[in-house]
């Protein structure tokens, strides 16, 4: 079976105007800067990056919740970025979102039943159909029918995230955008939601765009992963490749910084990056990561590396990635075994 592409994002840009205190000197912040990727049907595509890297803005632009300044987003054969008004409202059935904080994403004045039923208002369906759909979707997310009449404050954090997921599922969407769906939850509860997301994908063949800063979670749930830095993708790779031979020095640093609790497996030290990401307002002329790169070379500050595609479909933006006779490597960082030398 040939993989069928569900979502295509091409050269997406999102700009925000930022004014100085007195309203003069209008400056433009490019929160998302030329992002392109595609997701196959039934896959989970992860975006990781630090806060301010543009991962949430990318998700919101795809959801048409912030305005894309440039670029094209298509879901199947429908171009989301072209839709307006009523057509957009109706199309929303096909792509839904789960937000980070289930304490603020649910209306405290509505009962669980009404929260989940709200998106159905977009559909011309009889109330009887809706009622049956509601019960089914409550069961799918592991809630009991009698809980439908409770208010959000009567649920725990994990249960609230189940309600948020039920609200996303109720319109039978093809794509669900999950923005940090477990980071606001207690550790013991995270596993419940992650396993639920997996089970639902298995049962309903839904596609996820999964935004997270937790690399362990991303490794657990995602098939493909994009690493973002300062509004740009610096590396995109299938799971197995990314975690066995990360090619971009930023990916390598990010992976090395994650502490591991499995005794004996943490064979690496953290590469401590200097300083903080530069401001989005004055982007460096060369590679955006050059200032903090542990293996920076003079030419990195001169010209920005293109996001090049390699033979296995992964893409990376670093001058020093070479592909020879079927093997790829970063000639400066080597592979995982070099982490401790760089740390």
């Amino acid at each position, binding site marked *: 079976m040939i993989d069928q592409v569900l979502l295509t994002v091409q050269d997406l840009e999102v700009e925000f105007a930022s004014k100085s205190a007195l309203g003069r000197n209008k400056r433009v912040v490019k929160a998302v800067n030329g992002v392109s990727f595609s997701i196959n049907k039934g896959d989970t595509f992860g975006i990781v990056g630090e806060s301010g890297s543009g991962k949430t803005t990318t998700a919101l632009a795809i959801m048409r919740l912030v305005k894309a300044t440039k670029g094209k987003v298509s879901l199947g054969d429908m171009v989301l970025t072209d839709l307006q008004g009523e057509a957009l409202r109706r199309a929303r059935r096909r792509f839904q979102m789960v937000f980070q904080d289930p304490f603020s994403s649910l209306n405290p004045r509505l009962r669980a039943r009404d929260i989940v039923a709200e998106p159905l208002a977009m559909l011309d369906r009889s109330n009887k159909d809706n009622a049956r759909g509601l019960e089914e979707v409550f069961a799918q997310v592991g809630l009991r029918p009698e809980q439908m009449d409770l208010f959000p404050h009567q649920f725990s954090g994990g249960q609230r995230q189940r309600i948020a997921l039920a609200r996303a599922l109720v319109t039978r969407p093809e794509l669900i955008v999950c923005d940090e769906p477990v980071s606001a939850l207690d550790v013991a509860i995270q596993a419940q939601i992650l396993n639920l997301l997996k089970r639902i994908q298995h049962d309903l063949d839904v596609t996820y765009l999964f935004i997270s800063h937790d690399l362990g979670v991303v490794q657990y749930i995602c098939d493909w992963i994009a690493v973002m830095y300062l509004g740009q993708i610096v590396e995109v790779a299938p799971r197995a490749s990314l975690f066995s031979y990360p090619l971009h020095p930023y990916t390598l640093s990010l992976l090395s910084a*994650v502490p591991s609790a499995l005794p004996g497996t943490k064979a690496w030290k953290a590469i401590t990056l200097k300083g903080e990401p530069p401001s989005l307002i004055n982007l460096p002329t060369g590679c955006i990561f050059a200032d903090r790169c542990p293996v920076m070379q003079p030419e990195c500050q001169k010209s920005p590396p293109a996001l090049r595609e390699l033979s296995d479909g992964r893409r990376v933006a670093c001058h020093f990635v070479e592909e020879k006779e079927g093997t790829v490597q970063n000639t400066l960082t080597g592979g995982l075994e070099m982490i401790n030398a760089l740390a």
Partner: protein
Amino acid sequence: MSVLKVNHLCVDYRSRTGHIRLVDDVSFDIQPNKTLAIVGESGCGKSMTALAMMRLLPDGATITKGVITLQGTSLTGLPEAQMRDIRGASMSMIFQEPMTSLNPVFSVGEQIAEVLRLHTDLDKQQVREKVQALIRSVGISDASQRSSAYPHELSGGMRQRIMIAMALACSPKVLIADEPTTAVDVTVQAQIFSLLRDLQARTSTAIILITHDMGVVAEMADDIIVMYAGRVAERGSVETVLSQPAHPYTRGLIDCVPHLQLGSNISLKPVTEIPGVVPALETIGAGCPFVSRCGLSEEKCEAVMPELLEVRPSHQVACWNSQEA
């Protein structure tokens, strides 16, 4: 020689409906230059234990039993005025969210200076120099400029560094860090940990690290206490507890998180859920508080609370199953 000793600490909360025990019979001590991690889910009593040590318990919560001794001085009976001399001087605390624990209307330099003015007799000029030295010591460049910045002008990582600088201003003997990196990115977390390790190596401060992340424990701590429903479920050296967890709750906390694995032969184990949620403290019966979520529970667990007993040298567990095995 331990710098801080906590003996049979109990914290109760008095409400209209009765007493609830938030912290139940917790004991530990900590040596200089060592790091002790206190681990558990929210509501397990780890933050309450920390606040009790600082004598900063919220209204309604009081220490009803037990003794806290800092370098031979008992803190539990100390008048508030003397306690204020200790807080920020020999014992200080870093909180989870640096944005809400810094005062938004004073510059960060001013807030660090306040600690020095309260606890030392440095003059104005000396205070100014010390503030800048502290800001530099937590890895912030252009200290003179940054000291006049306000909290909102700094990034999350920078604010947490300022909190650390403030906590370390008077070289405390004990530093309590309550989830210090929960609100920051992994790269910033790595920076803050390497900073804390450097500072500890220089000053021999004992660190009490409160966290829910076993990865953080493995990275930073020497010893660990796992708390559940206000009680100690398991304690020991980090090496032993993480490699041979004896309490089902500790096992659960380790297995419920997808741990990042690097390399080409990765087998991703499914994460195991700890079913249910932490029970409301007033509903806990006579038995083990973990019984409702435990896969190994037996009749005995329902009826009798297991005591904290040694399973091997310096490794203690409160579980009927592991003690019989």
